[in-house]
């Protein structure tokens, strides 16, 4: 599995992706500094809002989308999947190696900059811890969801963006039922609890905020494994 992991890390880290996501991460950190040094009435609330919207709402899901959908999506799309699929290797091992590879790059490009940006706001350790925990939970759920999406759907990046920007950005704010299908709502609930901030509208309880995204990740792994068994390989 280690060799699969190394291969997938290598194939998904194209120069374009690394440069683009490093730029988005750097911008986040710079904004964090700016928020920390700005003269505003409620800096704690501004810092929390920035981490919740830019870090959890944009940087983490986009990073997870780019690398998660590429981990199996790239080989499925460019027809190199055959060199992994037609081996006597259990399908779950391929899926887990792909997920670990997606996490291995999504964490430094998504979670770490979010935590650094939170620190850059100067609003204390709780916000940094909250940003770290919430983005870790979120990246686990997003990357497994997008891993399966990349395998099953062409133009997974576009569909993932629809989920992140349209569903989570607008639809999930409309009511409780839609909010329960949003990773972002759970991540923001966790952030608010750990950072001692006012909970967001439609917030979930803390155990739910942790367990639900991780359960989503586990179910997505199982479904992706099943899909990999049945997929038509080019």
């Amino acid at each position: 599995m280690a060799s699969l992991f190394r291969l997938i890390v290598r194939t998904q880290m194209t120069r374009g992706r690394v440069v683009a996501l490093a730029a988005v991460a750097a911008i986040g950190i710079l904004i964090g500094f700016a928020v920390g040094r700005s003269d505003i009435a409620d800096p704690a609330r501004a810092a929390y809002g920035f981490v919740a919207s830019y870090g959890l709402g944009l940087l983490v899901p986009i990073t997870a989308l780019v690398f998660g959908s590429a981990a199996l999506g790239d080989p499925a799309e460019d027809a190199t999947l055959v060199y992994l699929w037609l081996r006597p290797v259990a399908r779950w091992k391929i899926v887990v190696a792909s997920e670990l590879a997606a996490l291995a790059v999504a964490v430094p490009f998504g979670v770490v900059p979010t935590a650094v940006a939170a620190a850059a706001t100067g609003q204390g350790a709780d916000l940094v811890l909250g940003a770290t925990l919430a983005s870790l939970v979120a990246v686990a759920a997003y990357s497994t969801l997008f891993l399966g999406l990349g395998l099953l759907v062409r133009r997974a990046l576009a569909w993932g963006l629809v989920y992140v920007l349209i569903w989570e950005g607008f639809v999930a704010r409309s009511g409780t039922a839609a909010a329960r299908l949003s990773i972002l709502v759970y991540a923001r609930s966790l952030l608010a609890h750990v950072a001692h901030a006012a909970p967001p509208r439609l917030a979930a309880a803390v155990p739910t905020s942790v367990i639900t995204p991780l359960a989503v990740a586990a179910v997505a792994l199982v479904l992706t494994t099943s899909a990999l068994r049945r997929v038509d390989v080019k």
Partner: protein
Amino acid sequence: MTPVVEVDGLSKWFGPVVALSEVSFTLERGVTAILGPNGAGKSTLLRVLCGLTAPSRGSVRVLGMTPRRDLALNGRIGIVPQQEALFDSLTARAFVSLAAELEHVAGPGAAAARALETVDLDPGDDRPLRTYSKGMRQRVKVAQALVSDPEVVVLDEPLEGLDPRQRVRMISLFRDLGAAGRTVLVSSHVLDEVERFGSRVLVIAQGRLAAEGDFHAIRELMDDRPHRLRVGATDSRALAADLLAEGIVVGAWVQTPTTVIVDTVDAAAFRRALPRVARDAGVRLTEIVPLDDDLESVFRYLVGRR
């Protein structure tokens, strides 16, 4: 003895498109060539045999196992897919080593080096695969398929992109594998290429098994079919009448005063007799154009006679 490959009533369709229709055959050890024009269903057949796609109907057994369902079968099949894509950031050795490792081959690095040497590539070459020519990439694909010494080797158009010297080398390699007791299945759309495999042939056309057997029997079948030619002459009507009268052609259709289409069952005899008939009729010939010598028409003929 149980055949290595058993295909029974195999059909495969993609939406409304029928790629394979009621294909049945068995394969033993040795080299078998799958011959057919582009789009005939050769690649789909190979993909089904390897389990890369499921049959829509019918059954496939390879080494007594069902592709897709029996994971252990994957370790006993080596495939050279038609598509060129490789993990381009890797070196040839890293790519073939990875294949060996996933196939649980002991000493994957050394096995990869041996496999690359078998296809005349340098295991020490540290350039990434993206810099390789099409022929070199093709040989890397063959190396990764052979690195685990599989019992069944499936090669989809493996000679594409190779220079003549490498073609000879690869054909010899495939024949050696067959002679060593491996079951080698090679697809091609080039008749002369298949002839050099010196093998059993399955002819696939329009998704159906059009013919099967020894290459020479297939070749004779192809040569015995009626041939259609266009003959240009100064008086096509007179020429057509004399050709029919002498029984040299089985059909003649005057297209224009100077063009006639003829059908003959013996192209060689026709070519010998035509100048004499034309001279006797006082007609000057301007052209003779075979209308169905391409492989497509050969396949159409074979499908039509089943």
